């Protein structure tokens, strides 16, 4: 019996029978910033309910409240007609609520079955759990090897393990946070059929996404959030992608960003990579012979599902990781394994995926972060000393030019929002003579406004003759910006496509590893 049913009384405020989960007036603040502003939300039995919104709209915060990871500052949660207080994920699980996080909650060094068994009440042995894993995976089409170590699995497999983990705990409310963002089109379809099957069994699903077409495909009802507020909840039949988009962004936007390629004539080759190979952190070869080149004024897009060597590729190019073989030529000069200093001195810029980790020193000021690449040389320094006056002037100029919102240029940058942090990184990486820009998931986690800003700056850089290597997972982004597209799969590059929608399917197949005779 669910704990929630114990205290069922004749409460007048209780939601109707068919509402399995009700949120009333949920408020959640972080250091004064409102992430959820009196949010109401109903989940009905046996429905797939999409939570749609831009990055930063408050979707993840909301589901973390439901899952007991965050405590709301005010508001009520009702489960199956009873008011509950969810103070931990354990409590959420006991109420039948399960969640698949965007960043997976699996212990990498454990096997699949160990991960599933972890925290499971009253299991007898791992062998029994493994049996159950097999049963469930057959029943719902979630194939995975129970004895494989998690770190060896693909992202899609890890997601399946997460779902199996929840099903083994008999949850009937499933929350999935951006589940498709890491999947190939084929895996997405498989996930959707699993979800439909769960729905048919009477389970309820909360599905978080910022992709309109997916939401229209899978959900019964859609709740749109913007800036911490619920804008509206609509039935799928009663709405259209255009209307949803408008609710999501708060104004009319054209669906599918416009193509903004201007020049088709490119200059000299700036970056040339030949037969590049490198090892990953686990000592496994993750780059397995890549060759490509980027010319002045050209954006080369590299599409692929996360974890196919993108991070290592970016790191090798900017000099953070050693190549085991192959050559990287920058303006004809061999910079292989010469380190990041050489890359910077030759005019290289790098927009990292994880800006907090590779982009800024969080406790240093805006000024100090802005001079990170230029402090070595005059006019930023004289001899052994920094020229702080000059640095301050430049900082003022850049803060203005890139409209970086901050509490002050002498304040630590950890106080900046994600979008402003990215503006700061871009300001630093694009100022001066940039010959080559490596942009690695440059819009990761940004809202539409900040995203457009990044696009604009990348295209500006291209127009001024910078060679741009764009590594991204989002195909829309790749198609919007790139002049040429290659696909990375398991450390090799495939194809060479113009950014024409007609190649979308082929590229999707390649990303999923359906090579079909394409040569690496």
């Amino acid at each position: 019996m669910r704990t929630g049913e114990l205290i069922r009384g004749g409460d007048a405020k209780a939601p109707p029978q068919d509402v399995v989960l009700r949120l009333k007036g949920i408020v959640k603040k972080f250091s004064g910033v409102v992430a959820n502003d009196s949010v109401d939300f109903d989940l009905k039995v046996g429905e797939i309910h999409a939570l749609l919104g831009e990055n930063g709209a408050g979707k993840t915060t909301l589901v973390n409240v439901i899952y007991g990871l965050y405590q709301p500052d005010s508001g009520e949660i009702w489960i199956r007609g009873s008011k509950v207080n969810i103070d931990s994920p354990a409590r959420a699980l006991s109420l039948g609520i399960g969640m698949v996080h965007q960043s997976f909650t699996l212990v990498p060094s454990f096997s699949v079955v160990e991960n599933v068994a972890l925290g499971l009440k009253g299991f007898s042995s791992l062998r029994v759990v493994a049996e159950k894993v097999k049963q469930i995976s057959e029943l719902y089409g979630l194939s995975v090897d129970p004895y494989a170590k998690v770190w060896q699995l693909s992202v899609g497999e890890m997601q399946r393990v997460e779902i199996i983990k929840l099903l083994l705990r008999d949850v009937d409310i499933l929350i999935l946070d951006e589940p498709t963002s890491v999947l190939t089109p084929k895996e997405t379809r498989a996930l959707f059929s699993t979800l439909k099957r769960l729905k048919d069994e009477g389970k309820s699903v909360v599905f978080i996404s910022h992709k309109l077409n997916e939401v229209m495909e899978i959900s019964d009802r859609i709740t749109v959030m913007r800036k911490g507020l619920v804008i509206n909840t609509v039935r799928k039949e009663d709405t259209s992608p255009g209307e949803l988009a408008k609710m999501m962004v708060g104004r009319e936007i054209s669906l599918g960003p416009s193509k903004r390629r201007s020049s088709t004539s490119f200059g000299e080759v700036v970056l040339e990579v030949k037969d590049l190979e490198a090892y990953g952190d686990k000592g496994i070869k993750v780059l397995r012979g890549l060759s490509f080149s980027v010319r002045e004024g050209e954006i080369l897009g590299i599409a692929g599902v996360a974890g196919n060597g993108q991070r290592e590729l970016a790191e090798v190019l900017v000099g953070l990781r050693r190549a085991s073989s192959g050559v990287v030529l920058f303006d004809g000069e061999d910079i292989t394994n010469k380190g990041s200093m050489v890359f910077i001195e030759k005019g290289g810029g790098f927009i990292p995926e994880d800006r907090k980790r590779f982009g800024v020193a969080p406790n240093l000021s805006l000024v100090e972060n802005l001079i990170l690449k230029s402090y070595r040389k005059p006019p930023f320094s004289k001899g052994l000393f920094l020229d702080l006056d000059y640095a301050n002037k430049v900082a003022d100029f850049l803060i203005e030019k890139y409209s970086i919102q901050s509490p002050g240029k002498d304040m630590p940058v950890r106080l900046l929002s994600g979008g402003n942090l990215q503006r700061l990184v871009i300001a630093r990486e694009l100022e001066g003579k940039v010959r080559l820009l490596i942009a690695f998931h440059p819009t990761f986690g940004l809202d539409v406004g900040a995203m457009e800003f990044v696009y604009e700056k990348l295209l500006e850089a291209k127009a001024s003759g910078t060679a741009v290597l764009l590594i991204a997972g989002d195909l829309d982004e790749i198609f919007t910006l790139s002049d040429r597209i290659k696909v990375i799969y398991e450390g090799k590059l495939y194809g060479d496509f113009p950014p024409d929608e007609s190649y979308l399917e082929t590229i999707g197949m390649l990303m999923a590893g359906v090579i079909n005779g394409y040569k690496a």
Partner: protein
Amino acid sequence: MLEAIFMAAIRAGTPLLYATLGEIFAERSGVLNLGLEGLMLAGALMGFVVSHITSSAWLGVLGALLIGGVLSLVYAFLTITMRVNQVVAGLALTMLGAGLSGYYGQAFIGKTASQFSPIYIPFFSDIPFIGKVLFSHDPLVYLSYVLVPLSWFYIFKTRWGMNLRAVGEDPKTADTVGISVFKIRYLYVILGGMLTAVGGAYLSLAYTSMWIENMTAGRGWIAVALVIFSAWNPLRALLASYFFGGVASLQLRIQAMGVAISSHLLMMLPYALTIVVLSLISSEAMRKRIGAPTALMKPYSREERE
């Protein structure tokens, strides 16, 4: 000769073994406790004092367990609940342990207390060589023989051990499946502190049989290095501790043989060896392969936003 050296290695290695075992538990849960030296000193004094008063060495061990538990509870509160920097908090604990034991130990210098003495186990002790080396020790050594495989089995083969490792590897994941990260960390930091304190008590109740100020002489710090050396594995901790114990006792033996090397230089041996060993095994790749707990030194907080 060889017999005596091996036997002495085990004796000298046992305090290290207890401390290393204790620290393995704490670090497996993701908490680095650098206060081992202080905990050992506190345990050494407490064990001695209780044994002196009650004339029971076993009650002395109980006293050491108690003080180790209390001090590491304070440490756990600071590092787990208050999220104080673990490196610095460990240093503070060492200073406190050294200070307290020095202060209260003043009155016990030169006193005697009930001691552990070797127990001969019928049959086993009679086996040639092995009997002398392994089975002519005091009960605390025998206890460690049991604790080591037990700890190994517990950490790697039981559900509780799995929870422990999960918390040290990935606290968020553990939390989301309903394992209390706080409870587990408190539990193992305290358990680790208790074992460490017993290591200290071994010094004053079996090894040197008296109380001397700062008698641990850096053994707590050596144990910190031994944890890395043993790859967070109790079985390897046993070998590592006895190896270091062997080096320490070799130094005594050389001195006893009257070789003309200054005792000061010989005493440097274990410390120098610690540096050498630590350097050999510390390269990043090595560390990853032998499985340092991923979340070591990272305080966990559910609501911290990325």
